[in-house]
């Protein structure tokens, strides 16, 4: 999809909006999939000092190309240090050293709970998805969680068949009742809009629409009756620098993976 001026795709807008959520001072646990491009774009633009951490144990990694897996050699070679996987999960994640966990998923619900386990019943799944990996504990141990995924009625669903990672459970109070002191998901960045949990209910509401996207388009792409913030705004357009850096990153990545036969 291109917008009216035909300058950028919805996917590029999603990655750029996701990257903007990160700060230079963040220590970010990078989930598999879409988050990796956003986190590295942030590092290559406005947040050069960000610490990126992948669950393979690489701390402070600065890859020139996007890794295909969370454990490509590029991550280790450019990292400040690489620790074992038990150390990563015990000391760094459980130890409370991570400010942001950046996740994606196959499905999300209105309280930002994520499913990456099964479609259909667990014992007889219609589709068996990869499972939780690091996400269940990333979701509970990082100070806050950002989620990025493309929006459609099949991915933004009324009811999850399986809760792989906790967002805000069944609304305000769920996390508190479980003894969690972390914030949970504070922002969801899609290809159409940005959503944030309502302060009173924790239900996701649209806070900004990407350029060229209207409320009807977003409603049609969501499986539950979607709420919009009274302060709804438009997501700032991608800058020339953001687009150039992102496209160069993708081009370098495609070239590198083509050669690794």
């Amino acid at each position, binding site marked *: 999809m291109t917008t009216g001026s035909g300058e950028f795709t919805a996917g590029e807008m999603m990655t750029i909006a996701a990257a903007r959520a990160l700060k230079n001072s963040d220590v970010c646990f990078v989930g598999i999939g879409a988050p990796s491009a956003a986190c590295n774009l942030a590092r290559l633009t406005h947040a050069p000092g960000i610490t990126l951490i992948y669950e393979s144990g*690489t701390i402070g990694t600065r890859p020139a190309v996007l890794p295909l897996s969370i454990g490509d050699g590029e991550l280790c070679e450019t990292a400040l240090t690489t620790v074992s996987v038990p150390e990563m999960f015990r000391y760094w994640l459980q130890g409370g050293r991570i400010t942001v966990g950046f996740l994606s998923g196959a499905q999300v619900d209105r309280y930002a709970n994520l499913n990456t386990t099964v479609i259909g019943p667990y014992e007889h799944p219609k589709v068996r998805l990869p499972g939780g990996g690091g996400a269940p*504990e990333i979701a509970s141990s990082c100070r806050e969680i950002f989620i990025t995924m493309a929006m459609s009625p099949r991915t933004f669903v009324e009811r999850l068949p399986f809760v792989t990672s906790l967002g805000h459970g069944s609304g305000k109070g769920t996390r508190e009742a479980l003894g969690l002191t972390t914030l949970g998901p504070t922002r969801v960045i899609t290809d159409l809009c940005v959503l944030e949990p309502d302060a009173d209910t924790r239900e996701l509401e649209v806070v900004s629409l990407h350029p060229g996207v209207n409320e009807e388009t977003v409603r049609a792409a969501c499986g539950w009756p979607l709420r919009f913030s009274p302060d709804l705004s438009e997501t700032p357009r991608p800058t020339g620098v953001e687009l150039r850096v992102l496209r160069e990153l993708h081009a370098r990545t495609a070239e590198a993976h083509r050669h690794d036969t």
Partner: protein
Amino acid sequence: MSLFCSLQEAIARNVHDGDTVALEGFTHLIPFAAGHELIRQGRKRLRLVRMTPDLLYDQLIGVGAADRLVFSWGGNPGVGSLHRLRDAVENGWPQPLAIEEHSHAAMANAYEAGAANLPFAVFRGYKGVDLPNVNPTIRSVQCPFTGESLAAVPAIRPDVTIIHAQRADEAGNVLLEGIVGVQKQAVLAAKRAIVTVEERVADLRAPGPNAVILPSWIISAICVVPGGAYPSYAQGYYRRANAFYIEWDAVSRERETFLAWIRANVLDTGPEAFIHRSAANRADP
């Protein structure tokens, strides 16, 4: 019995039908050559343990070597599904596969508990999620000091752990470097350990006194299999074959193409083929 031996001998001696077997390597140093030897020797009813089943367990599951899988993330990284794993779980082909599913944090802690000779692992996890409802081995304990409820899972104690490493010295001490995953814990948690290495050297060339080195006396067998981690990688030797991981999606999608691939690339070949497979991605000297 010599510590150094052929891969055929190491597997024949140390892995038996019905064993609990962990082949570890977190994206890096995945012991593909050893897994292929398990397939050639026709091992059955294995209880396979591995955090990220990856293509290697897709292959073992697809040939019917396993009847149980303990895991925490079962995908083809950056590509999509493991089709043989899915076919076994969704359709029972080529045989039903029981699964015992965890999170990464749980399995990492469970290996560490196994290495530490503890009966179970305790950690903060599984809060507000559905996995404890479908996996009865996920339980909780109360902190005796604060009363806090904490997640508990049984220690992982494999009959045999198999890993791949960069090199071994003449005495059989093994060095790993790069992304070291859970291999040290998985080896120390197991009754027996098989290590395949890129090369046998006079000097390990350890980067410093805190390098990850497994002393010879905790290892059951060492096999020199250059390229033995292909299509994953060995830091300093060859890069990950990302294109192969992408191509596996098509190879593994249908049962017939998968079985033809296994015949041509596993059953009709041996561990010596791996040096050629990894050659194109050799690291610059």
